[in-house]
């Protein structure tokens, strides 16, 4: 393809930008219809996302886990698998990293921190690999299994930090005895915390750099390595992959394990960098958002980064928007759904704005070929 890079880039960006603008316009219409003031709402949204240093830091903070859970869902899609389980993997990653982070007093940071991160990744990997293994060895469908494992993960996490007491139940192993009746873990030791790039009140930690690095590595892995080729081939045509000597079952397990590792890392970073503990109110919802991020980013790692940024900004601006204009933050969800719709159905935008299609452009993204695409 001899089209200059900038034009390809421009073409890749044009539709998403138009999609965002259209979604915002429709969101404004909805607000106006129901008696809210869209102008003030968007002013609030914008200033909450980009208005000042703290706004930017919130956006970055929100974006960080989304990059990783988005990658988690995306890498599974690449292998033709639908990982609805990022939220469970996220939680297990959190628990494992906390378990290491609150112990081993006296370890130097350069040992303790990597150890805690590794524990989180390992936990997520196992939790993700499980549905892969079940699929390969028993044929259990990954969609069912990952949904179920989400519930199991959050119950398990709840148990580990449970303060105990009622009905004679013992406290969970990670519970902080100094928290009284509150179910939560102690703070992870300073040696296991991801350092700040900019400390409070900005609270931006090095996790964001790690997440971006991981995105680049994932891009390289998927598009530039033999394993990535194998993984993608399995996703596109598993029978052809088998014919070509590729390890279909291995790739299914690998993709799910990778997905789990990424979501687990998301939980790990969020915990070691930001929350510094686990409490049941830190849900894995960001794992479900990973689906949106991955779809919005068209399952491409760099697309995932961009869409995580966009969603992060919308999330970050939501509180300010409500603060300034009184508009309920739920409208953000409506806007997110609309952006996703417009990005995923470019025909809509093209008809709307009469943008012509370049002859070599592929129009639809096919992610999975159904529940059992092999």
């Amino acid at each position, binding site marked *: 393809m001899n089209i200059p890079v900038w034009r390809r880039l421009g073409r890749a960006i044009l539709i998403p930008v138009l999609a965002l603008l259209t979604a915002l316009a429709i969101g404004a219409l909805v607000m106006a219809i129901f008696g809210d003031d869209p102008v003030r709402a968007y002013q609030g949204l914008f200033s909450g996302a980009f208005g000042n240093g*703290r706004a930017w830091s919130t956006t970055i903070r929100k974006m960080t886990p989304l990059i990783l859970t988005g990658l988690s869902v995306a890498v599974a899609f690449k292998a033709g698998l639908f990982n609805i389980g990022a939220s469970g993997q996220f939680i297990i990653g959190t628990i494992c990293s906390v378990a290491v982070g609150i112990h081993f007093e006296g370890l130097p940071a350069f040992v303790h921190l990597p150890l805690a991160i590794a524990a989180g990744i390992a936990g997520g990997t196992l939790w993700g690999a499980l549905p892969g293994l079940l699929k390969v060895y028993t044929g259990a469908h990954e969609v069912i299994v990952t949904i179920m494992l989400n519930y199991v993960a959050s119950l398990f996490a*709840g148990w580990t930090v*449970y303060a105990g007491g*009622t009905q004679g139940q013992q406290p969970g192993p990670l519970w902080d005895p100094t928290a009284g009746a*509150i179910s939560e873990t102690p703070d992870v030791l300073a040696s296991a915390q991801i350092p700040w790039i900019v400390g409070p009140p900005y609270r931006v930690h090095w996790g964001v750099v790690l997440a971006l690095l991981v995105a680049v590595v994932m891009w390289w892995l998927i598009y530039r390595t033999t394993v990535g080729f194998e993984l993608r081939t399995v996703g596109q045509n598993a029978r052809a992959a088998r014919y070509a000597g590729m390890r279909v079952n291995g790739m299914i397990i690998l993709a799910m394990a990778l997905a789990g590792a990424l979501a687990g890392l998301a939980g790990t970073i969020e915990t070691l960098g930001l929350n510094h503990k686990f409490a*049941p*109110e830190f849900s894995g*919802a960001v794992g479900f958002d990973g689906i949106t991020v991955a779809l919005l980013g068209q399952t491409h790692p760099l697309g995932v980064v961009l869409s995580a940024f966009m969603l992060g900004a919308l*999330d970050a601006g939501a509180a300010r928007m409500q*603060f300034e204009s009184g508009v309920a933050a739920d409208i953000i969800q409506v806007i997110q759904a609309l952006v996703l719709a417009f990005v995923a159905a470019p025909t809509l935008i093209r008809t709307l704005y009469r943008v012509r299609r370049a002859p070599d452009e592929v129009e639809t993204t096919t992610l999975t070929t159904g529940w059992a695409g092999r």
Partner: protein
Amino acid sequence: APAAPQAAAPAPAEGQQAQEAEATAPAAKLKIGLVTDVGRVNDRSFNQSAWEGVVQAAQQLGLEENVDYKYIETQDAKDYADNIQQFIDAGYQVIVTVGFALGEATIAAAKENPDIYFIGVDQFQGETLPNLVGLIFHEDQSGFLAGALAAHLTKTGTIAAVLGTDLVPPVVAFKEGYEAGARYVKPDINIISTYHPGELSQAFTDPEWGAATARQALDQGADVIFGAGGQTGNGALQEVATAAEAGQEVYCIGVDTDQWETLPAAHACLVSSAMKLITPSVVDLIMQVHNGTFQGGNYYGPVDLAPFHDFEDKIPQEVKDDLARIKAGLEDGSISTGYGQ
């Protein structure tokens, strides 16, 4: 406690503001912000009760909504600190944070902003900060009264509780108190109770589980059911009301506020509610700020049973007397709920 709070004259915050040369804020007016726990401000539960306290206090002070007082609904537990910060940045002098989960963020903010007053609902203070009060309640006592009432009312000898989640201490306190109270009145009573099985984010917002579980308890012979857990508990209360409307002699007991006011659909069975009076307590604490009598530490808000409303006549006088006796006993310490020891 180190430095004394700047407890001087009325409107203490005003002096601070002047020092910082933020002269834009009109002099005598307080600005009051409220940060909810994850959920809604009008959740017919503790967020709403706290907000109503803010509103009532603000009206007494002649404040204007959205200018002098407003709220932020928290979307995600990670945002507690950011949401508190919104109010700090906007120059608010009183910030109410609702729910034990905001405890740490509130303490941190209070330490960083000694000139701003914080009211933390359901937040026990282990250490006293001059500008932060934890508004807490003896939920176990409230639950104890509810349990005693239930034990008096039951004909089948089985009572039930349908609860939010044991991950939230006040819910546990309600439950433990309820069971202790019931056993206090009828030692051999059969109590069946269960917490919502799901994760925290669903525990208070799953009315269908509450309703189905209440039905399950009714099927097992329970005839008084205590519903404690936001929408989940409300679902249970409404299910019992349905049975009552269908002619069964069953009762339900609400939680937190007088649910007769907030949940009309449960009127058919709602004998009372195990209240913790958040609203008047919040009003009182805000007025303390206004009057300069604010003191850091823990503030125990009152708990009580709600009026019986339509069931006033159906409750025998002996029962009312016994409840009054128990309440007195709980207050003077002669009766203990056994919780938290």
